């Protein structure tokens, strides 16, 4: 396959960026999208040009590092797929493909297609945990959890933190990401102890980071590579509202 790529190039955080066109030739349909970029980067290197920086690591769809906005969609046109698991067989010979970084004020561009998602970490640090120290915990089977609850909590827990939800949302809202953790822990008995402070603090940090509000467009869930459900956002809203109404934090 021969393709034309339009790729966002930006030297660093401060520099202005632009879309740059690169032709690529001889792409196999069995290649992954990132392997196609590897091929381009090897060519660029041989020509002495700066290769395109993009985030990637596990290349099996679980680490959440890859983050490309391909042809107007986060992680490209395939549903339920990370960029690294997107294969070139979903494109046609002669296609022009646009590749951009996630766009959000809270995700500034480091370079080219690499963005800074540390805002996500700070939100998790605000309360995405159960406060137990190592040791001194009860036997694992002392806390029975119904299978359906465990499965549902698991569904929320599969979030890979890639940020596609933010990239897809017209408001750059991080609600799906935040809700996945809040609802996972709110559903489990272990997490109920801190559910109020968790919801309050994580939402507060989310707002501090400059993410937009949720318009319930559903774009986030539609683009989520691991299928985090919109129901989690409703759970977050509920958790937040009841926390604010009943917690003892008056400040």
């Amino acid at each position: 396959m021969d393709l034309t790529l339009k790729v966002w190039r930006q030297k660093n955080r401060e520099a202005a960026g632009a879309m740059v066109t690169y032709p690529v030739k001889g792409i196999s349909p069995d290649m992954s999208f990132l392997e196609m970029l590897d091929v381009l980067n090897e060519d660029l290197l041989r020509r002495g040009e700066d290769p395109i920086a993009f985030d990637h690591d596990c290349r099996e769809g679980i680490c959440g590092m890859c983050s490309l906005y391909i042809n107007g969609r986060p992680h490209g046109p395939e549903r339920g797929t990370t960029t690294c698991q997107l294969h070139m067989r979903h494109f046609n010979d002669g296609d022009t493909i646009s590749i951009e970084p996630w766009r959000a004020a809270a995700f500034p561009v480091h370079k080219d297609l690499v963005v800074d998602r540390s805002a996500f970490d700070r939100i998790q640090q605000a309360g995405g945990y159960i406060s137990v120290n190592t040791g001194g915990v009860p036997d694992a089977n002392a806390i029975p959890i119904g299978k359906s609850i465990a499965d549902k909590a698991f569904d929320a827990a599969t979030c890979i933190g890639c940020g596609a939800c933010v990239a897809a949302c017209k408001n750059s809202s991080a609600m799906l990401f935040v809700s996945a953790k809040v609802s996972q822990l709110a559903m489990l008995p272990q997490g109920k102890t801190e559910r109020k402070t968790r919801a309050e603090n994580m939402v507060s940090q989310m707002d501090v980071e400059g993410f937009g509000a949720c318009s319930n467009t559903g774009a986030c869930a539609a683009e989520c590579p691991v299928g985090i459900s919109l129901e989690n956002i409703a759970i977050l809203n509920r958790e937040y509202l009841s926390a604010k109404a009943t917690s003892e934090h008056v400040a």
Partner: protein
Amino acid sequence: MNWFTKTFSSTIGRKIIMSITGLFLCSFLVVHLAGNLTLFYKDGGEAFNIYSHFMANNMLIRIMEIVLVLGFVFHIYDAVVLTRRNKAARPVGYYNSHPEQNSTWSSRNMGLLGTVILVFLLVHLWNFFVPARFGELEGVPNADYLNLYSEVVLAFKNPIYVALYVIAMVALAYHLIHGFQSAFQSLGLNHKKYTPFIQKFGYAFSVLICLGFAAIPLYFFFFV
């Protein structure tokens, strides 16, 4: 800021206000439409004029009127604040974006739809509410109420008004199609058992209410 203002100035808090006011405004639509249906009585406007007289003079209605205004104000104010925040959350846009592949047009254009509705609302108030409320209407012979009905007949003979009303009702329908079910989601009311019903009901509600409203100008334009 205390906890209360903090809560309702957070993104979620503002969405909660949007949804509560939105649902309240939906209830207003029901009452308003129910009253307006008296226009279809072939009694020369008597029922309608009695209804409008009641609405203009009843104490409870006058109080609710203030609540209604507040509902609009909060709904619009939070919409503006959130829209500005949302725009700021993405200072650099995409070169190539295909949101139509992951979300509905109405859900992404609530602000635009709302603005159309707002423009309509102002015109609508100017047409009917202001004259009715501030006594610029003619009286009805042998009755202690005023003749808003004649005002309606007059207005809806104007094709520009009729067009504006119909367009506004289409916008309102789309606004509600997303807004109705979205309000439940914002309030955290999402459940396997009930959400499918809420979504279907919301769709039917939006279409029927707006058809009802749009039928009035069309009826007067073509049949009266």
